[in-house]
């Protein structure tokens, strides 16, 4: 379903990677690895269509994502280093307004349920700015609980989470894969995904060494 | 008493609009402030009572659910 061929990324005067190709089908997850600064985030943003690739092509269901445009974006769920939550709003409001702006239907009960499951039930009505670092991340990740879109792109979802919360997120991804979804994920903390096929891709120095050998 | 008639009093020597405008605004605001305060206070007390009641019933439920645990 998602196919990348020969992607190249140049930042400033530095070529981060070139010739990156992979293919991902439903129920599969790509686990993107690499040192700090090897270009994982850059690759994910490229796959979302936020940054144009210097060369290479990205196809979704056989068509270039640039052409698909809104059609592609309506199947995509991206979570970056930033949490994309508003500090003034409560977790509940954040969740609801994010859903409404993405034109998804999410009623209040479902949202409360999602918050409950990420462990924020006591904080649903507290402005996010008072939350702890990990609680903010949880508020952002609550979007995934009822997320039905096919392609999940998650950039270091486990950051700041305690181990229990990390495991819960991994189970969400697992369930998504089992439903036939696709996922791309980076992380420096190994958390086992309980279901689906996990494929790996390494970027950066180690990858180059790999290819050279 | 300085005034001859009520009409005189209200006219205020042709300055009625200004004088009574001042009086009215002053009276209005100085009445409104305590009324609003009272109202706000009532709402607050009702809210707090509701909250306390909810807390108490929750505590009761908890202690029924696991009677062995002491209330902390």
């Amino acid at each position, binding site marked *: 379903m998602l196919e990348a061929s020969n992607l190249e990324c140049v930042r400033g005067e530095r070529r981060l990677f070139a010739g990156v190709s992979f293919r991902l089908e439903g129920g599969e997850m790509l686990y993107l690895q690499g040192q700090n600064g090897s270009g994982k985030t850059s690759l994910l943003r490229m796959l979302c269509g936020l940054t144009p690739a210097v060369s290479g092509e990205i196809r979704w269901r056989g068509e270039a994502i640039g052409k698909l445009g809104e059609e592609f974006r309506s199947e995509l769920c991206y979570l970056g280093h930033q949490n994309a939550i508003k500090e003034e709003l409560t977790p509940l409001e954040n969740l609801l307004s994010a859903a409404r702006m993405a034109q998804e239907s999410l009623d209040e009960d479902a949202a409360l349920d999602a918050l409950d499951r990420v462990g924020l039930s006591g904080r649903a009505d507290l*402005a996010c700015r008072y939350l702890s670092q990990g609680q903010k991340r949880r508020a952002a990740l609550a979007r995934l609980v009822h997320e039905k879109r096919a392609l999940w792109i998650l950039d270091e979802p486990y950051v700041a989470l305690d181990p229990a919360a990390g495991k819960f997120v991994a189970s969400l991804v697992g369930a998504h894969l089992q439903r036939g979804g696709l996922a791309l994920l980076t992380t420096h903390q190994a958390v086992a995904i309980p279901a689906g096929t996990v494929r790996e891709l390494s970027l950066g120095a180690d990858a180059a060494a790999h290819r050279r050998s | *008493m*300085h*005034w001859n008639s009520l009409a005189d*009093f209200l006219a*205020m*020597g*042709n*300055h009625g609009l*200004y*004088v009574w*405008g*001042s*009086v009215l*605004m*002053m009276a209005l*605001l*100085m009445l409104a*402030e*305590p009324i609003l*305060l*009272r109202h*706000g*206070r009532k709402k*607050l*007390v009702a809210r*707090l*009572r509701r*909250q*306390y009641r909810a807390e108490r019933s929750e505590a009761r439920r908890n202690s029924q659910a696991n009677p062995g645990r002491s209330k902390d």
Partner: protein
Amino acid sequence: MSNRVINWFRYASPQTFYPLAGQLIPWFWALAALFGALGLTIGFLLAPTDAQQGEGYRIIFLHVPASWMSMFIYLVMAFWAATGLAFNTRLSGMMASALAPTGALFAFLSLWTGALWGKPMWGAWWVWDARLTSELILLFLYIGFIALQAAIDDPRRADKAGAILALVGVVNIPIIYFSVKWWNTLHQGASVSLTKAPSMAAMMLWGMLFCALACWMYSIAVALTRVRTIMLERERHTDWVRALLADKE
């Protein structure tokens, strides 16, 4: 010595202040009503017509007390702010925030009654006179204080920030007043002179005095009422508030 300090802090604690304020409030209301009735009777029924201004001058019985209160309340507010910063008592911050809206109210009333007085006397709702301008600025200072406190939702932080602002403001008020005064008198001669009040009959003086006293009592009553509400809100987790509200059930 230590005894005195303890006593002081005892009354500064919300728990003891709350019932005390509750007992005092009705008295202040009564006094406010009494003084108000006296002042208005003298001012509007008994006082003679002013030679120059006709009946319009009667606005003075509202205008001057409102102006005085607006300035005085700011001083009191700054006093509470200072004690709050110095002794870190909870009551001080609450008093300061309880006074601000009333101060703003009187500043507004001073502007309003002044404007309504100005139209017949000077032919304009507003002129850029020193006293008028500094009253306007005072209103801004009040509003700034209220807006700042409203924008910070942790009450302890709001108190401290408000206190700093109030103190800075109180240093500035005399500077502002004199700068504005000088600015205006340099620009134009005394086409409008507020400095010389019309030589007032004793009757007028008494009327003004009683009206001013009524405003005083009113302010105290309202501030105490508001501070009681603020106390309940802020101390809602303490046992004494719980007990208090449970009693009345």
